């Protein structure tokens, strides 16, 4: 099998990526448009960015979104990591099928159902709706994505390293913090980043679970998009795309380096014990 691009493969990849990236590129380019008409080019300008800076309600929404994202991603990563350990390392226990169902179902569950059911549980529990109910809702659906990411890494690595640590007298907790966690760390970081971006991104679940006073950025963008396409939305979108792209690329480079190092150490550990 030759390992160069064939004509057919190159064409399908190029067309596919054009389809994925042209809409985003157009959006970014036209955020620098002088004209108020979004689809007519009127020369370069950064005026929409400066008008964003004066929009206080948009800045407030961005701040709410960031805080929700930060808190929910952190809690979701802890819960998701515990859930991944449960799925991969705990073997059989009563209620295991239900547990795995509750991890996998939220991955595909339509947002409208998740949002409505979470709202009703918050009302039933008598919680004041607002910042904290959005955060709780986001923890619930992002922890399942976090669990799947960490689970994939836990499965890959050899359990005998953990067993060796415990044979040498380490406690289960000590083994987790000194052996397991350093090895799965890159996937825990990706899980956090994924949870964070999913939280930043969510419109439907936040709309159901919010209360007076807590408006997130997607809710703000959505209400403006309904009124029509404006260069200001292009500008805020470009900023978000820029942040996420930088974050994801940095994480990818970091993860690759870590993985190379971890694999080397894993091999070394085996060489030393065996």
């Amino acid at each position: 099998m030759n390992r160069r691009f064939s004509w057919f493969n190159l064409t399908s990849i190029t067309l596919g990526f054009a389809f994925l990236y042209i809409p985003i590129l157009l959006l970014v380019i036209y955020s620098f448009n002088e004209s108020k008409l979004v689809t007519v080019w009127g020369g370069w300008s950064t005026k929409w960015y400066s008008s964003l800076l004066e929009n206080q309600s948009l800045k407030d929404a961005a701040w709410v979104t960031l805080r929700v994202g930060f808190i929910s991603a952190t809690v979701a990563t802890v819960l998701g990591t515990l859930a991944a350990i449960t799925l991969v390392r705990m073997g059989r226990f009563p209620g295991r099928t239900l547990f795995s169902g509750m991890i996998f179902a939220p991955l595909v569950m339509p947002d409208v159902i998740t949002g409505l059911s979470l709202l009703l549980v918050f009302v039933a529990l008598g919680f004041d709706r607002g910042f904290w109910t959005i955060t709780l809702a986001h923890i619930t659906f992002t922890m399942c994505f976090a669990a799947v990411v960490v689970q994939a890494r836990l499965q890959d690595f050899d359990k005998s390293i953990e067993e060796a640590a415990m044979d040498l007298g380490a406690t289960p907790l000590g083994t987790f913090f000194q052996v397991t966690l350093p090895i799965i760390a890159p996937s825990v970081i990706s899980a956090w980043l994924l949870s964070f971006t999913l939280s930043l991104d969510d419109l439907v679940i936040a709309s159901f679970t919010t209360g007076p006073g807590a408006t997130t950025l997607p809710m703000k963008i959505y209400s403006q998009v309904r009124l029509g396409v404006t260069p200001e939305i292009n500008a805020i979108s470009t900023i978000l795309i820029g942040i996420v792209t930088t974050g994801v690329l940095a994480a990818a480079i970091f993860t690759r380096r870590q993985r190379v190092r971890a694999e080397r150490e894993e091999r070394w550990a085996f060489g030393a014990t065996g």
Partner: protein
Amino acid sequence: MSTKTSSLKRWYVIAAPYLWLLVFFLIPFFIVFKLSLSDLATAIPPYVPVFSWSTGIREFISQLDFENYSFIFGDPLYVNAYFSSLKIAAISTVLTLLVAYPMAYGMARAPKSWQPTLLMLVILPFWTSFLIRIYAWIAILKPEGFLSMFLIKLGIISEPLQIMNTTTAVYIGIVYSYLPFMILPLYASLEKINPSLLEAAQDLGSQPWRAFWQITVPLSLPGVFAGCLLVFIPAVGEFVIPDLLGGSDTLMIGKTLWNEFFNNRDWPLSSAVAVILLLVLIIPIVIFQRQQEKVREAGR
């Protein structure tokens, strides 16, 4: 760890995620179901509770009524919304597969050194906001948008295209936003195929096209299956895409539920809509969970 940890200590790890999901994922469905059996009221929250701890079981049963369900099944608007959601989701799933397969195939056959970069390029749009990506298509598809302008300039069409606010726009939106969910499992299964199988087929005189149909396609079926479930299930209940791209002509159940809840403030009726949607999706969701468990078992 399981061999060394006593069963009591195991539960320290299991308990936190388990209890969290029970309280915030499983129990809410029962509350939705309960509410779907109650009546609308002008109060906050706007419904008459069916069950409180002071009333007994017998009273509870006598109060149950299926009014909301008979209303939904009696009104063709709701029934049509369910069918049209299933149809739109099914067609978009097939379209997504058709776009994703050549891409995943090309990626799996690309030089090894290129593959991590290509994978990164597929995942990157998935990380950027869903809402923003749908918004980007409004500027392209609207009558005075980029697509019509471009085609008019080329002389291919003389009148602006009417794509915005039609079902076609919804198809484009779903294919575009769910494409990574299809490509990733497809790539995972295509990449695992041993190239020597295809070489053997060629050596034995099989045409490349025939080898593709008889070897590559069957071996990639698990990926096809996983990808289709990952696209189809959430697409059935999609709200943002039909709302922003589909206009008032597109009937989808996610939009109906949203309108019942936010515009009509009818919580019991929207709960009933959600219960039926969940019943429609429960079989594909269980299949999806089984399949994920199987993948996990195989990964050991």
